[in-house]
Structure formats: C-alpha cells, structure tokens
C-alpha cells in the first residue's frame, strides 16, 4: 500500500540552518554545512501576551510552519495540521518537575501558564492562535520515530480527507538533568505542506510505503550526526532528495523494525 501526495512547501530550522534555501544549497553542493547553535526567531504573529509565554518549541514550529506555508503560497488558516515531536517544552517540564519535588506546598504551586504550556499540544495551540486556523490538528509523539509517525499521519490526512495539510516535525532540547537521560543537542524542525493533487505549486511527488530496508545515511558527517541525534532530523534524507531534483528512492528511519520507503520525484 503506497501513499502518494505532492509537496508544495518546505520550512526548516536547525543548527547552522536558518531556512530551507540554506539546507538546499548545502545538499546541492553549493555551500558547505557549518554547524552553529539554532537561532529561534521571536514569534511575531502571536499577540504580545502569548509571545512572552511561548517556549522554544512554539518559536520553532511557527518559524518552520510559516516558511513552508508561505513557500506554498497558501493561507495557514485554511490548513489542517500534524505536529509530531518526541517531547514537548523541555524547559517548562523541568521547571514543573523541580517545583513539584519540593515538600513545601507553596513551592508546588506551579503557575497557570507553566501548566497550560506543559501539554504536548502547546505548539499546536499557539499555531492556532497565531494563524487563526480552526482546522483539525493532530499532535503526535513516537520517541525517535516521531518524524515517520507524523509523515504517515499527514499523508493519510491529505489522501483520505482530500485536503492540503501542513506537517510540522520539531524537537527541542531538555535542560539538565533531563538532558542527561534524553540528550537532544539542539532545536531542529522541518515543516512540509502536502497536497492531494498535482498543481503548479508542486515541488515533488512523494510516495511512501512501509519497508524493512535499512535507513539511508547522509554522506556529510555533521549532517549524519544531526540525523541520528534529533528525531525530527530523521527526515533529512527526504529533503536531500527534494534538493537534488530528479527521482530518488530513499529509506527513512521510523520504528524499531519498520522503516519508510519514499520515492521523491521532482515536479
């Protein structure tokens, strides 16, 4: 069983990667990859109160999602969305667990904002507030398989419900001590806009099926380290195929014992 949809826009943010054109130039060989800490832009679209309350994962998804939607020439309010992340807002989670470890009742009074930002769908909630989209939003986690889980969710939404959809894979780092048990070196996010039919906007046709093959590796060592160290970056081989143009078969990492075989054909 193969799922097929059309990629219409890409958004990207990661260590040394300011946007999709930066990564495309690296994959096409025009520029070298120069790792540097991820720079998260302020979420200009959010009202001032929400902007102050927004954590790294909100800034990351707004930046990548809006880049992808703008590249596709679409209105974000019209799109259903799929968010997939291994964990939520790591800084916020740490602050809550630290406060709750106290024996003192006063110390345990975590702030209302901290609490409502603790849900895994925080980024989806702020995305709705920022873009005005009332369309369905799926919010997933599958640990290291989060990219693949979100990709299949977005593609089935696109194909079955016959709708464009934006998929946002994103991960941000935990502070210590959680970083010690779940090390994620930096923030990284990919956003992809899919359409059910071919149109003038289409960048590539994407066909996905479940597979037993081993996941593709990236030749550039620093990018391969990135792929292996952040769940959302498991999608990098797909983006490489898009950047190179033409038709490519790639295998993406997914669950233990189950991978995704993807055919990418430029339009």
């Amino acid at each position, binding site marked *: *069983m193969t*799922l097929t949809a059309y990629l219409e826009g890409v958004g990207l943010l990661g260590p040394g990667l300011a946007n999709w054109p930066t990564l495309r130039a690296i994959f096409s060989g025009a520029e070298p990859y120069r790792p540097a800490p991820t720079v998260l832009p302020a979420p200009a679209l959010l009202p001032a109160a929400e902007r102050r*309350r927004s954590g790294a994962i909100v800034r990351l998804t707004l930046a990548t999602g809006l880049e992808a939607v703008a590249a596709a020439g679409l209105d974000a*309010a019209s799109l*259903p969305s799929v968010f997939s992340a*291994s*964990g939520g807002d790591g800084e916020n*989670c740490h602050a*809550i*667990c*630290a406060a*709750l*470890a106290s024996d003192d009742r006063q110390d*345990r*009074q*975590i702030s*209302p904002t*901290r*609490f*409502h930002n*603790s*849900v*895994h*769908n*925080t980024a*989806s*909630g*702020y995305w*709705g*507030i920022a*873009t005005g*989209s*009332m369309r*369905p*939003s*799926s*919010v*997933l*986690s*599958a*640990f290291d*398989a989060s990219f693949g*889980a*979100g990709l*299949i*969710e977005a*593609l*089935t*939404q696109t*194909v*079955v*419900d016959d709708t464009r959809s934006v998929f946002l894979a994103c991960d941000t780092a935990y502070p*210590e*001590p*959680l970083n*010690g*048990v*779940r090390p994620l070196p930096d923030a990284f996010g990919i956003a992809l806009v899919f359409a059910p039919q071919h149109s003038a906007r289409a960048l590539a046709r994407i066909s996905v099926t*479940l597979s037993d093959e081993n996941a593709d590796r990236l030749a550039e060592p620093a990018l391969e380290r990135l792929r292996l160290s952040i769940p959302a970056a498991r999608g990098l081989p797909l983006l490489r195929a898009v950047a190179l143009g033409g038709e490519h078969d790639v295998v993406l990492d997914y669950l233990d014992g*189950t991978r995704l075989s993807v055919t990418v054909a430029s339009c």
Partner: protein
Amino acid sequence: MNPLWISHFTVTSSIGCGLGATLAALRERRSGLVPCLFDTVDLDVFIGKVDGLDTVHLPEALTDFNCRNNRLAFLALNQDGFADAVRAATGKYGARRVGLFLGTSTSGIFETELAYRRRDPVSGALPPDFDYRSTHNPFAVAELARRYFGLSGPAAVASSACSSSAKVFASARRMLAAGLIDAALVGGVDSLCLTTLYGFNSLGLVSPRACRPFDLARDGISIGEAAAFALLERAPNELPADAVLLLGVGESSDAYHMSSPHPEGLGARIAMHDALKMAGLEPSAIDYINLHGTATQNNDAAEAKAVCAVFGADGVSQTPCSSTKGATGHTLGAAGSVEAVICALALQNGLLPAGLNTREIDPSLGVNYLLHNGERPVNTALSNSFGFGGTNCSLILARADRP
C-alpha cells in the same frame, strides 16, 4: 465514511476494572470519586483512583516500562479478553497490518516527579534506575503495547491534552481508509500525578468536592485515572446483533486560547457538526450525547452553547445528554476512549447513563441533562472530547442493527 466495527473494547477506571464492573457501576449510579489520598498530595480535592496499581506486575521482558501509567495500561489491556482479541486480529491480518494509536496527556510523568526527589545532591543527576524512554516519554505506552503484542505496523501516541484518546479514532479511521492497515488498536491511558493535580489547582479549576457537571453550583473538575482500549476493523457484511460501529469523527481547533474554551463553543460546534456530516446523520438522529462536561464554569457553558447550536432550537436542546465525569472523574487523555466505551455500553445495553453529583441543573445551559438513568433502546451516541490548546474531537457510535 465507511462504518468501522468496534469489534472489542474494554475500560478500567475508578468505577471498576472491565466492562461488567463499569456497567454495574453506571446502573447503580456509583461514583468512584473519593477524597484525595495520593502520594504526598496535600490538596483538598476529590480523585478517581484505580486501586491496586502498585501490585500490578509487568511481564519480565517489559519491566523497563514499570510505572503507574504503564501498569494501568497493562491492567486494562488484560480485562475482558481484550489482549486475546488483539492477538487474534494480529494472527488474522498480520503484525504489520495492525495499527497502534494510543492517547495520553501526561504519560508516566509521575515517575519523573518521583525521580526528581531522588536527584544526586551534588550533580543534580536523575537516579540511574530512571528510564525516560519507557516511562516519561509520551510514546512509552505505545511502545509497551507494541512489544507486548509484537506489532510492527504504524504506531503513534496522540497527545493533545483531553482530546488525545478521541483523536486516535480519527487517525485509525484515516489509516484504515488509506488501506495502510486492516485493524487498529486504539485507546487511551492517563494516571494520577502531581503535575495535573497541582496544575489544575493553580488554575483554580479543581473542585473541593466530587465534581458536579452542568450544576448551577459547579465549581471545577475532579481528576481521575483510567485506561480504555478498542479494536477497530472494517465492518464485515455479517455482524453480531449488538455490534457497535464508529460512524463519524469530527475534529477542530478553537484558535482562541491555551486554557479557556471558545466562549461560544465554536470549535466544539464544528467538531460535532463534522462528525454528524461524516456519519450522514441529522442531529435529530442522535439518541444520547456523552458530554465532555468537566464541571468548570466556562467549559460547561461553552459546550452547552455548542450543543444547543447543533442540536437545539431557540437555544434549547432536547437530546438526552450527560457527563460521566461525575462517576469517573476527568480522566484527561484517557477520557475520549473511556467515554467512547461508555457510549458503546449504553448502545449495547439500552442504558442512558445519568450524570452523578449534579443536584440542580444550571437552567441557563438549555440542555436535556439526565439526572436519572434511562433504560430504553439507544441506537446512536455522540461523545465529545475537548482540551487545552483548543483541541476538539467528537465521535459518533451506533448500533449496527439500528432501524
């Protein structure tokens, strides 16, 4: 959509382990809510606690997953012959053709809360026996089920606060319709932890009594823990007489506020409307609504407006409805699946379950809220699940033999 057969289901909550105990509690109008005696929590609130979770043992190969949330999931999976049904489906369709979509909001974070009390006094490190991946991470319960049943198909955890385990029905529907799978294990689990008890308390949303949904004097939620699971398959031509089908799913986002519902219930309205549209049913065809009904002032008011807009005329809805959270408490990420199973029990047993604890229905809400159980045929039911972040999901279930 093509109707899906909910071929097997089970639920475990503070009102009972398994379908028999749950149905008996609903019939006897028994609430599971009790004054909070949980860990070191010093809040004057009520909780719905599942007894005996400390003595549930996971199989030897799955001991890495040992935490309250996973023990609750494991206990529930093994009620009502459900695990055997999953194994039979896996044998019938193949391990790769069975999808796994579970919902949770807080996963095993209680384990992390406990680990934070045992941090190394010098380095601040978490204790070496703490296993983040198998307890805290939202995917942990799906990984447990994947390993327990040997599944190798698509798998994900939906974690969108209190809509989580309603949304898994939507994911499963799409995967089945796409032909990627032939069956789906869906469900939800959430367990008591300090994050939600103190968190909702800080928002001023927890009642000092057992929660009273839709009451004039409602003053907040009571948090409960629960797990519920269902097996979805394409409906065959021949079905058992009391077979329950999933007819429609509606999803929406409020795009309004992180912790307050849209005041007019606009997102909720869209979710119910879209579920009816997918089911091909008029609002008048729904026999019972299992409300989200958390018992906070704003949530119940917004949901009532949405129900009246979809089901009512002149701001009043006659469709029988209730919130079963007065019995189970608000089981958060498990609520969508728990209440879908309660709807399935209502359909199979001809029971309209009354809301518990509510004395005086808020007359401004304009809904037909049930204070007494009804014993009569129930052919169709709609279940609402809404959550923080403005996430909404409505499910429509029906008897296959409805006229």
